[in-house]
């Protein structure tokens, strides 16, 4: 097997671009919280990079992509990256060093748990947080990644399509966020006090860098540098754009003014929704997927508020709902005309795929819901999830880290 220098260049660049998405997420979330919690929030993203980078090298990669056991988990053969060298692994990517594939996948393993942090923003104990992330990555992310992407993974064999992580990344984290909203104590003053974003430019900065990095996320998932990557690049951009326009329009129509935060959120949900479909559909389908994401996620956020769930930064409404829509839209719009390696969806005459996608979505929902619930309940008992009232009032920055973000 020969390493292709162009493919390798693209995957390494993509991995770097996906890495920057996690600090970007920190700013996207950090701008949304009150100024007393900005460090606590940004840091939850930042430290996840460190934590999962080590977890992935030590055992995560092996669990997710290692030699398959019964279709449900990778073996421990690759623990500590034993045998994961620079020779290509043809099962995953025949033209790039195996370590390049591993590193690219690592960035996905990092950002997924970081996404959840928006759900319990402004109130989680830092120590419990670290443990939770490690457990969640190991018991939720790694198995699901194996099912969908691992050689021999049962959902993969079942025929489920997920180009860059609609189920693995977005549904898994979005559903975990929903569980968190149920299990955590609500923030003091939730629904009675204003808890408005303290720095909207940070939100836009985060959204801009996320958009940038998402090209690595989706177009990098082609794992080669050619037609498939270019196609995924275009659908990604198109869905993001349409998501932004749609949410902005929804906010205009509902609240009388076009919201800046809304457009930023809209871009993100467009990106979320196109993720599973990026390499299976064309640009016009991407417009529709972005549009659907904008409408559905906007409504999901409204619903969440009406139901009084304290999902602090609407991770469920954006990633859970957006990822679900994307996975199902893949079942609707996928076509082998775009990607011969994919499958035809409903509109290409194959209703079968839609059912498979529904099944994959359902399984991911149920599994992530169940295990996350278990983990959080146990941790709540053992270490406590919420910070003390006093600490919450002072803010996470001072109470958890002894630091205060701004001194003017």
């Amino acid at each position: 097997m020969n390493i292709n220098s162009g493919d390798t260049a693209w995957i390494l660049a993509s991995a770097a671009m996906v890495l920057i998405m996690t600090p970007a997420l920190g700013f996207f979330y950090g701008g949304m919280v009150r100024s007393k919690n900005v460090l606590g929030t940004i840091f939850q993203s930042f430290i996840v990079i460190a934590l999962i980078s080590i977890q992935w090298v030590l055992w995560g990669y092996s669990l997710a992509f290692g030699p398959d056991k019964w279709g449900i988990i990778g073996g421990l053969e690759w623990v500590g990256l034993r045998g994961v060298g620079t020779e290509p692994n043809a099962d995953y990517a025949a033209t790039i060093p195996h370590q390049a594939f591993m590193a690219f996948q690592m960035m996905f393993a990092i950002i997924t748990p970081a996404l959840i942090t928006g759900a319990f923003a402004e109130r989680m104990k830092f120590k419990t947080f670290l443990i939770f992330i490690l457990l969640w990555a190991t018991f939720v992310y790694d198995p699901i990644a194996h099912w969908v992407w691992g050689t021999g993974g049962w959902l993969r064999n079942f025929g489920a399509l997920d180009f860059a992580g609609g189920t693995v990344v977005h549904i898994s984290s979005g559903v975990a966020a929903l569980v968190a909203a149920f299990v955590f104590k609500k923030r003091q003053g939730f629904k009675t006090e204003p808890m408005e974003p303290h720095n909207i430019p940070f939100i836009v900065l985060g959204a801009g860098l996320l958009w940038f990095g998402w090209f690595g996320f989706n177009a990098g998932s082609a794992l080669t540098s050619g037609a498939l990557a270019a196609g995924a690049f275009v659908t990604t951009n198109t869905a993001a754009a349409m998501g932004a326009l749609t949410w902005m329009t929804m906010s205009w129509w509902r609240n009388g003014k076009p919201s800046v935060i809304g457009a930023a959120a809209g871009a993100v949900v467009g990106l979320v929704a196109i993720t599973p479909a990026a390499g299976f559909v064309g640009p016009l389908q991407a417009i529709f997927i972005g549009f659907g994401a904008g409408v559905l996620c906007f409504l999901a956020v409204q619903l969440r508020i009406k139901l009084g769930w304290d999902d602090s930064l609407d991770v469920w409404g954006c990633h859970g709902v957006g990822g679900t829509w994307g996975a199902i839209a893949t079942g609707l719009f996928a076509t082998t005309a775009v990607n011969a390696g994919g499958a035809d969806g409903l509109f290409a005459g194959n209703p079968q795929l839609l059912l498979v996608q529904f099944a994959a979505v359902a399984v991911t929902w149920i599994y992530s819901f169940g295990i996350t619930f278990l983990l959080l309940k146990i941790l709540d008992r053992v270490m406590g999830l919420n910070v003390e009232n006093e600490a919450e009032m002072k803010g996470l920055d001072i109470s958890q880290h002894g630091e205060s973000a701004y001194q003017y």
Partner: protein
Amino acid sequence: MEKIEAIIRPEKLEAVKNALAEAGFIGLNVVAVTGRGTQKGVTHIGRTGEKITVDMLPKIKLELVVKSSDKDRAIETILGSARTGVIGDGKIFVSPVSQVIKVRTGEQGEEAI
């Protein structure tokens, strides 16, 4: 006429403002201050690890000018809505005001409040 200056907890601002409005005291000003009192401060950890005890805490100073006859009612309203019973609840200071003018109309005295 009297000026009432109330130093309160930032988290009580909404409650006090609303209570005052209900009691008919609409006009007021709010200033962000930092204050020192019997309440001990917050400990920061510096960039290089040293503990920095900040003896000043963020407080809100509420200022309102009222008719002398309204003074006690205003004070009661503030006390009722600002108290938590824990150290750091703040102080109220009252001082005389000799003249009040409404900029828009030039009206003077109690009319102008």
